[in-house]
């Protein structure tokens, strides 16, 4: 969560950060002007009441207390008025507090919510190619901690603005009272302000360093616990602990350094106004002797210095958060300004047709976009042309990295080709509407993804026309009905991150059922049954080709390694390094394409080799009761 916050805080000069930080705050005010106005009004009211309270206290002392003590009796009317004024100011201050804090809080939370919404909307709009270029961790923190960091200074902002107004008001009231005391104020308030600025400037890099080290400590813990099995079985606990301890030690030192800075500035920030009050006592006494001021004014000003100290710190809080805010804002903007949407078209395929679809690749080229704009992209596919005829099963075979998954992604338009066309029943997939595309084709990926939801929701995905009957039918077809029925709450069982944990094979079958539930006319299986037991896999594939309920079979494009899977295909397309090298039936390719034969017969070759070795190894003496036979 905190992994990236504060990382690039040190970038740019501090004046630069101040300017940009203020612009970010400006943006916030433009977006929530009304609630900001409420918050600032509350804050200004509060600030002015702070000044007022000082003068009321002064007046109470000078005009009520002094006469009463000197005369030996209290003037009841004046006393009641004094008490009412003091309590009344408190009541009004509560109004100010409500306006300020409620306004500030609501403004901060609304901005956070609005920007989380915008960022996650962009995630949904931006193409997968963009997703691939960004790590999951980065995208998570963009929507969470970066948005939070960007709007963090909003919480103390109205207080700081109100405090600035209050400081001006205080100086003005001082001049109104007495110029000499005003000069004391002019010396103390700017010094207090400056001390706050210096404090936040010094603090920012230290905080950033601590933040970075926190992320590093967390990174080590994550890695080490993820690799716990390796650590444990190799007995490396002590070394891992040493690695963790050294970084935890750096974090400790960083935090101590933060604490020491606090230790220097916090007491000074408290002492400075106190010294101001003392100066007021001396200067005030001199002015009193000169007859320039009364006791009322002297006490008022002394009190003013005491109560002003705390609000001034709000300015420091805003300044301290600005570098983090700017860094968070930059990362959020990067998402919001990213381009490359994949808009859908307007054509729909006849929704009534349930016949299998024809998929065609026509001279398709594809290159992954480079991580940086000036670098050339990695070319993955070139001149890929093939067809999956209606109702047929085509197997896509090739070594790791040949581009099989990319072909699967292109077939269902997760990505668009750089050149060439992918068509479904003769229509370019780019011209299809989102609904038409999703209604006709389904991809089951290599790594199954299960939502944090019930089994039912994971399969139906709120799609129209998929009720419990359809869900069960799909589960049966995916050979998943058995384990789902055995789950504690059946279809209502929560699965995913916070639910019942499923095995890899179970997850694969669930995602397969999800695809089947939509009765796609083209099914693309990207090595989607690798974790399923071979016998189960064979049953699933047979079921797909000839649905037991008599429904129409789908056209199937299947990425496969297992020979049983390949054997079910009407045609095999063999790819190497992004190009279609050969196509034909399994038997044809086996006979004519050496690369293909090597790949699919690797097991047998290895076995023969092993048998030979064993024969050599054990040529003498032959263990009794053990026959060597090359089976087949």
């Amino acid at each position, binding site marked *: 969560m905190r992994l990236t916050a504060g990382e690039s805080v040190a970038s740019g000069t501090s004046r630069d950060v101040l300017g940009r930080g203020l612009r970010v705050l400006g943006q916030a005010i433009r977006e929530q002007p009304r609630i900001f106005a409420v918050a600032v009004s509350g804050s200004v009211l509060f600030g002015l009441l702070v000044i007022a309270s000082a003068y009321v206290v002064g007046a109470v002392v000078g005009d009520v207390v002094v006469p009463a003590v000197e005369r030996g009796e209290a003037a009841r009317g004046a006393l009641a008025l004094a008490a009412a004024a003091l309590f009344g100011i408190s009541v009004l201050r509560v109004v100010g507090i409500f306006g300020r804090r409620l306004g500030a809080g609501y403004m901060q939370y609304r901005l956070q919510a609005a920007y989380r919404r915008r960022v996650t909307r962009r995630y949904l709009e931006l193409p997968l190619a963009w997703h691939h270029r960004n790590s999951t961790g980065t995208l998570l923190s963009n929507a*969470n901690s970066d948005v939070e960091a960007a709007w963090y200074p909003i919480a103390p902002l109205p207080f700081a603005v109100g405090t600035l107004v209050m400081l001006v008001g205080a100086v003005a009231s001082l001049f109104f009272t007495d110029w000499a005391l005003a000069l004391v104020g002019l010396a103390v308030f700017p010094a207090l302000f400056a001390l706050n600025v210096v404090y936040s400037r010094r603090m920012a890099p230290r905080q950033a360093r601590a933040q970075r080290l926190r992320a590093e400590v967390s990174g080590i813990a994550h890695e080490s616990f993820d690799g716990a099995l390796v650590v444990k079985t190799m007995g490396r606990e002590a070394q891992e602990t040493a690695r963790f301890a050294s970084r935890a030690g750096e974090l400790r030192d960083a935090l101590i350094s933060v604490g020491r800075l606090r230790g220097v500035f916090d007491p000074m920030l408290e002492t400075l106004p106190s010294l101001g009050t003392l100066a007021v006592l001396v200067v005030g006494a001199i002015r009193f002797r000169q007859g320039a001021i009364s006791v009322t004014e002297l006490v008022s000003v002394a009190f003013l210095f005491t109560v002003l100290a705390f609000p001034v710190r709000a300015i420091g809080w805003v300044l301290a958060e600005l570098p983090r805010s700017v860094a968070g804002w930059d990362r959020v903007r990067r998402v919001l300004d990213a381009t490359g949407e994949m808009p859908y078209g307007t054509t729909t395929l006849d929704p009534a047709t349930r016949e299998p679809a024809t998929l065609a690749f026509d001279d398709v080229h594809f290159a992954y976009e480079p991580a940086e704009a000036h670098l050339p992209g990695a070319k993955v596919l070139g001149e890929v042309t093939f067809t999956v005829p209606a109702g047929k099963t085509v197997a896509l075979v090739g070594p790791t990295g040949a581009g099989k998954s990319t072909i699967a992604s292109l077939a269902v338009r997760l990505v668009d080709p750089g050149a060439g066309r992918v068509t479904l029943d003769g229509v370019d997939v780019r011209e299809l509407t989102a609904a038409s595309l999703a209604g006709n084709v389904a991809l089951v990926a290599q790594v199954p993804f299960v939502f944090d939801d019930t089994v039912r929701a994971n399969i139906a995905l709120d799609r129209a026309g998929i009720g419990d009957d359809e869900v069960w039918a799909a589960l049966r077809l995916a050979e998943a009905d058995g384990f789902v029925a055995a789950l504690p709450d059946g279809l209502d069982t929560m699965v995913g991150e916070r639910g019942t944990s499923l095995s890899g094979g179970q997850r694969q079958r669930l995602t397969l059922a999800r695809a089947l539930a939509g009765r796609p006319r083209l099914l693309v299986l990207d090595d989607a049954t690798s974790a399923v037991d071979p016998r189960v896999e064979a049953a699933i594939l047979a079921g797909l080709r000839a649905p037991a309920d008599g429904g129409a079979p789908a056209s199937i494009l299947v990425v496969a390694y297992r020979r049983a899977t390949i054997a079910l295909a009407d045609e095999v397309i063999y790819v190497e390094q992004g190009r279609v090298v050969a196509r034909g039936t399994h038997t044809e390719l086996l006979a004519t394409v050496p690369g293909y034969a090597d790949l699919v017969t690797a097991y047998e070759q290895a076995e023969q080799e092993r048998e030979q070795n064993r024969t050599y190894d054990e040529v003498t003496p032959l263990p009794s009761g053990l026959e060597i036979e090359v089976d087949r």
Partner: protein
Amino acid sequence: MSTTTGENSESTETTWQTLRRGLALSPELRTGLAGTLALALVYMVGRVAVPVAVQRGIDHGIVGGLDLNVISLTVAITAGVLVVTTACGYLMMRRLFTVSETALAGVRTRAFRHVHDLSMLHQQSERRGSLVSRVTSDVDQITQFLQWGGVILIVNLGQLLVTTAVMLAYSWQLTLVVLVAFAPAVLVIRRLQRRLAGAYGLVRQRTGTLLGAIGESVVGAPVIRAYGIAGRTARRLDTAIDGQRVAQQRAIRISIMGSSVGELAAGLALAGVVVVGVSLGAGGTLSIGQLTAFLFLVTLFIQPVQIATEVLNEAQNAIAGWRRVLDVLDVSPDVADPGEQGRELPPGPLDARFAGVTFAYPGGPPVLHDVTLDIPAKSRVAVVGETGSGKTTFAKLLTRLMDPTEGQVLLSGVDLRQVRFDSLRSRVVMVPQDGFLFDATVGENVRFARPDLTDERLTAAFAELGLSDWLDGLPSGLDTPVGERGEALSVGERQLVALARAYVADPDLLVLDEATSAVDPATEVRLQRTLDAVTRGRTTLAIAHRLSTAQAADEVIVVDRGRIVQRGPHEELVRDTDSVYALLYASWLEQTR
């Protein structure tokens, strides 16, 4: 054997108990505590210095004849006091932060080590993420509290103490007025604080939901796109986003009520002080300066009361975090190193024996039933069976990641529970399924267990495994970085590195939990060859998912529903065409040719 920690023990322990437990575990936290508190108290004298100076200045320097000397002297002394108290404030914080951060770094490191010492069983019963947060965010919560709230708490308690003392010295009647004015506020704030804790709890919960929803939209992007369910996803996100916002707004409303109550109490106290104080002053028992000082002192009461809700809430969070860390530390490792009293494994090749071994996960049915099995030294044994048959339990028991519920596992006649970990780990090595790699270079990963090995030795090891070509093909050879979790390498390559890592560890007993991950058959064959080289001449137990491994083994153990149903060489087992093994083998053949 306890299997859960943390989350559900939330309310069973009082704050004091947690603090006591925490202090017992980190006695260094007490180091110089008395001195630190004394410094805090002196620091707080600075806060009442000004009201006292005002009182003395007014009473002795202004009322009844102006005396600039008295005022100058008062101010000079007070300024001197302030310099001292400021210095004390610095020293107090410096000591506090140094001691607490050092102690907490120690706790963090100890908890980290402890997690590694817990058995596999325990590590799995906890979500890994939650173990990580024990040594990260939970400790962070404590240190962040100490850096902010902790200081405020100490300082404000001191402030209340010193302020009350000075007020009492001036007038017990007025002190009573102030305390009476604040008493209802304290009661209300206590109630609010409880509500606030609940509100923040809801915020945390909703934040968790939100993170989950964002995570789904990011990780599940291909599915969302392929099924055209962006609208549904957006609605789920909006619900989560607004849910968090509403919870946050509710929390801040409660928090504001807390500060408002404090503010009103202060107003009440000021009014009360003036009314009662003027009567007292008129009666001659209170001077003008004293009354004025009282008005100043009352303001010192506001701040602690106002932020009490927030600070107490932070304190609760920090205590809860501490409790979770302590709970982890308190779980005694169920698979413990016998340490010094333990025995060394006898030198030479190791044989293994399962003697009447039964194993059940806590609260579950037995996974293995009364298994007895001998694995002769230097033999290669493969364990096969359907998913869920209990075959991986063999690997976990043999490497002592878990202990049997009944019976014994013996290596060369020594019960594993008596074997010292350093001896066990240097002689018995397991290659787990996923071949986890650390974010370092290929070389560093391979010498993980043997940091002393030279590059030459590693290169030679790769050659011995027949992997020289592969190593030479890497951009920087041994120095090639493998990326986070090894993701810069393919799945097959990661497994090669993991095998090399086990090979250079040179164990006498090798336990392999074979991977089923999708690699192309050519890669799989290469892995198989490497495996053959690694296992040559060692006692090997392989949990076989590929029956080619079983074919190559000296003996195959077939496990079905927790029992050994067949054993013998591959060729013998396939002869019984109705047997479990023959069926498995037939299915395997179907898939591979």
